């Protein structure tokens, strides 16, 4: 009997009707109907972003377009015993979007959840999507609510017999809770896929979402990445001596490390047919995605950038374009000696004869490395570049590493860009590339 109070009960039908020889439900995860009409084009109808530049497209576009940097001394925890002292922190101004979250849920939101919800709210409003069942969500993160995990551990040690607020910390530390809050906030029901491929997560999430639509598994998907600063992660990169003690300068000959940041970006993806049917404003199109794994080392890339090259090659192959059609590359460009040299070699190799014309920058020079959010934020920066026809600079670059045979963008400039490529690489050898195309 249909249970009272269960929304969407009527949509629950058997996953696979064996007796009829194979009728399928569209909603189940497997088996799903095979794409018969060819792969649909996948467009972006909403984009939200939060970085140390602020919340929203305009504040961020202004920041990247003018080549500002957003670093400040870390205020969230004590860095007196760390080598590095700065990061690109987000300042919350107190305004929080209207959502369907209940008051207790709002009270319990941690820093990472707030970043995610701010970005999602902008994307949701822009896309003008309605609350519904069955909207897949694909998110990337490296550490979810790590700050709450830290609080849990400190209290467990300091007050071993006291459990005050500990259950809440356990629940909200986990990234699935943050994603569930997102569903509750806007009134949709997933499913959720949370990809944790270290610093490539934000690109893997967009790529996976794109594939769900492209292969006919979904008509629209909300996707993105988020991460907030935490003492554990900051100390981790500091212990590896991966953080710059001077200034983060990606692709600089004298670069000495990365700087951390925090933020979130969320994209509303849907089929072109769906967007046109709704009369939605189309911001851009995703045309390619590639992912590859580097088996070389847990934290170091292959010195020749083999997996980065494989990822870029796959993305261009899937997109059906050649490197000379890519007008801008938003590099992973962390500012560490090993990453940037490997990525430079990969870009050189991938570009081939087009290398001397290839325009490249790393926006981590402005907002730091936002880890699981990085790939999604950088995809939004590519979208800005495509829509507004400018290139964001590597704002701190002084002396270009001679390994870079491509053109590094060092100052903000106007440019004609039809296709933009974004790279993300992470610990564990995760490599991912996404390619976006201008919508005209």
């Amino acid at each position, binding site marked *: 009997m249909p249970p009272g109070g269960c929304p969407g009960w009527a949509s*629950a039908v058997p996953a696979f009707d064996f007796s009829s020889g194979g009728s399928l439900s569209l909603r189940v995860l497997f088996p799903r109907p095979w794409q018969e009409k060819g792969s649909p084009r996948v467009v972006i109808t909403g984009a939200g972003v939060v970085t140390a530049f602020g919340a929203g497209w305009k504040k961020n576009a202004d920041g990247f377009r003018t080549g500002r940097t957003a670093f400040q001394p870390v205020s969230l925890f004590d860095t007196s015993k760390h080598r590095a002292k700065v990061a690109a922190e987000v300042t919350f101004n107190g305004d929080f979007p209207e959502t369907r979250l209940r008051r207790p849920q709002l009270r319990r939101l941690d820093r990472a959840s707030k970043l995610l919800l701010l970005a999602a709210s902008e994307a949701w409003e822009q896309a003008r999507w309605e609350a519904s069942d069955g909207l897949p969500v694909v998110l990337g993160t490296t550490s979810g609510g790590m700050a709450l995990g830290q609080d849990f551990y400190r209290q467990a040690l300091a007050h071993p017999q006291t459990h005050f607020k500990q259950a809440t910390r356990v629940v909200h530390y986990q990234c699935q809770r943050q994603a569930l809050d997102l*569903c509750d906030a806007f009134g949709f029901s997933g499913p959720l896929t949370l990809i944790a491929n270290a610093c490539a997560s934000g690109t893997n999430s967009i790529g996976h979402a794109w594939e769900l639509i492209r292969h006919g598994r979904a008509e629209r998907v909300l996707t993105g990445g988020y991460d907030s600063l935490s003492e554990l992660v900051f100390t*981790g990169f500091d*212990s590896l001596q991966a953080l710059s003690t001077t200034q983060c300068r990606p692709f600089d000959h004298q670069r000495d490390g990365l700087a951390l940041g925090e933020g979130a970006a969320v994209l509303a993806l849907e089929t072109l047919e769906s967007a046109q049917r709704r009369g939605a404003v189309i911001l851009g199109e995703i045309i390619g995605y590639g992912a590859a*794994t580097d088996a070389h080392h847990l934290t170091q890339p292959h010195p020749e950038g083999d997996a980065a090259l494989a990822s870029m090659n796959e993305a261009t192959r899937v997109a059906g374009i050649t490197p000379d059609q890519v007008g801008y590359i938003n590099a992973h460009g962390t500012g560490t000696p090993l990453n940037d040299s490997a990525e430079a070699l990969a870009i050189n190799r991938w570009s081939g004869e087009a290398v001397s014309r290839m325009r490249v920058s790393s926006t981590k020079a402005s907002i730091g490395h936002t880890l699981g959010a990085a790939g999604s934020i950088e995809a939004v920066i590519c979208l800005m570049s495509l829509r507004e026809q400018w290139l964001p600079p590597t704002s701190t670059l002084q002396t270009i590493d001679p390994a870079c045979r491509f053109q590094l963008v060092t100052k903000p400039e106007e440019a004609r860009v039809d296709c933009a490529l974004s790279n993300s690489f992470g610990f564990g050898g995760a490599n991912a590339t996404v390619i976006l195309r201008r919508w005209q």
Partner: protein
Amino acid sequence: VSGAIQVAGVGAVSCAGWTATQLCEAVRTAAQLPAKELARPGWNHGLQVRQVPGANPRPAFFAHPRFRRTSPISLYAVAAALEALGPDRELIARRELKLGIVVCVMSGCVNYSRRFYDELLRDPSTASPLVFPETVFNAPASHIGALLNCTCINYTVVGDAGTFLQGLAMAADWLQEGRVDGCLVIAAEEADWLTSEAARLFEEKIILGDGAGALYLKASSGSAQLKAVTDSHLFLNRQDRNCAALKMKAELPELAGRVLLCDSATGFADLDAAEINAWKNWSADRVSVKKTLGEGLAASSAWQCVFAVDSLRSKKHDAATISVLGSNQQAIGAVFSCESCRE
């Protein structure tokens, strides 16, 4: 539907031992496996866990340079993966088989995360750079990829126990799209006083178990097959556990023949209420692996699937239904069957 998805291999590490056979035997006989005490700082007694016993003999892969410093979760994940892969490991090494990897975790690399944060609290300037990389969610997936020299797509997916079934659907998609020739789906967890204490906040008598489970999928027919994975029914403001469980149950097909229900019940009434209600009319065979192996978080659902597939292969059942009510995310189910296994 573009093709069948075959379960080409299974592997498991649990408190019953380092093989799927040991796991299945322990569950089948409802073995009373001993729990061990993990010391908890500040308490005069420990926390009980059903932990994986020491490996004897030590698997050969322990000698690989990647595994000198890894925490148990990576060892468990690799052992389960290699058992599931079987002889196909050689094909991967010769680059004759493109292998995808999906690793599912809920708690993940908690041993080294706790250890690194503890070092940080003592003095951040001396926190170990060797420990930090092993705290990252995708460290186990990276080690598996490195050991197999596998450069194809490799995802780590985080979530509650239901995530493993989502991972199976993801792998099936990759296989049907021709992106990979085979795909390992693994779920793994490691025991720690921190997670044990966290779990006790929700059920005081719960005992966590650690280990891993793996299914190796290929796009072909024969042997046990993955037939269906339901939608993921989330626990939301407007949909409680009870509704989510009922919807999951409704999406699962009625199966003919000897059918096994492999559920996620823990043996604690409050935690199991929604699942018990959803399956209250089930009258055929039923097994709850957690009651033997402990609450294995993400690994639990992999163990359920390993047991179900073993039951089909050993011709004890014609089909198996998997029911998973995760701890804090979703209700999700799956079906395996084996036409060729039928007597």
